[in-house]
């Protein structure tokens, strides 16, 4: 019987320190910074046009925006942000237990987007369109860009929830998608204050 050949095993530990911020979160932060500038530009242009309007704002003959209904919708969106935050905290202690609050956050977010769709249908019927006035153009542009971000963030959260269900969700993925949702949630009150009020 030939002698058994053995190889020595050398364990090499990674000498680099652990990153301060996971790559997924860093990438998302950079994306959010650029998107924050996009919204800042849109809101600035709206503010200047509103202030320079010679006929008042909203222009005469244009429908008023549903301020009270949107306040309720804003509360739903803010609540969704809080629920997702709790889901993220729960994830650290009990991964499976984070699914329910995450799903609730997604449902509240979907309610927000759906409610906005209904609001848009009503406003279009009342005569506020992209071409009816500068007011309409800014409204649909700013709120529409936000709605697109909300949809994208909801899709990302849904994807994260599906991974969580299969128990293959890395913490950094949840952190990055939740961060995107927090951005969508936090930019909305600014839009509400500037565009609706």
């Amino acid at each position, binding site marked *: 019987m030939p002698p058994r050949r053995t190889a020595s095993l050398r364990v090499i530990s990674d000498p680099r320190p652990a990153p301060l911020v996971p790559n997924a979160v860093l990438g998302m932060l950079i994306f959010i910074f650029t998107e924050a500038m996009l919204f*800042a530009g849109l809101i*600035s242009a709206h503010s200047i046009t509103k202030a320079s309007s010679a006929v008042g704002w909203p222009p005469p003959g244009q429908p008023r925006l549903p301020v009270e209904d949107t306040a309720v919708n804003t509360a739903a969106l803010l609540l969704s942000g809080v629920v997702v935050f709790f889901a993220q905290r729960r994830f650290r202690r009990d991964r499976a237990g984070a699914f329910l609050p995450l799903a609730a956050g997604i449902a509240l977010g979907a309610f927000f987007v759906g409610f906005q769709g209904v609001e848009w249908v009503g406003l279009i019927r009342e005569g506020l369109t992209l071409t009816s006035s500068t007011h309409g153009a800014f409204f649909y542009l700013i709120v529409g860009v936000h709605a697109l971000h909300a949809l994208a963030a909801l899709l990302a959260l849904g994807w994260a929830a599906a991974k969580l269900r299969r128990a293959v969700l890395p913490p950094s993925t949840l952190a990055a998608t939740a961060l995107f949702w927090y951005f969508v949630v936090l930019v909305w009150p600014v839009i509400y204050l500037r565009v609706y009020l």
Partner: protein
Amino acid sequence: MIRAAAILAVLLALAPELAHACAVCGAGVDDDQSRVAYLLTTVSLSALPLALFGGFFLYLRAKHRRQATTHGAAGRGAPEPK
């Protein structure tokens, strides 16, 4: 290129109203409300990137210090190698 720029400059000098064609540059500059709006948007657009990157830098610095303190404490608490 230089010739084209010169022709453009001459045209603008002959028809100065073209220089005011920008939809917002000359709008309502005389009233206070739009002046304040210009000022506030200029300040917010200038300060926002600084605030975002500055806030992120401060967060990273605080996290790095916390991590260094934790590792330092763990290192001091570890048993001496024999």
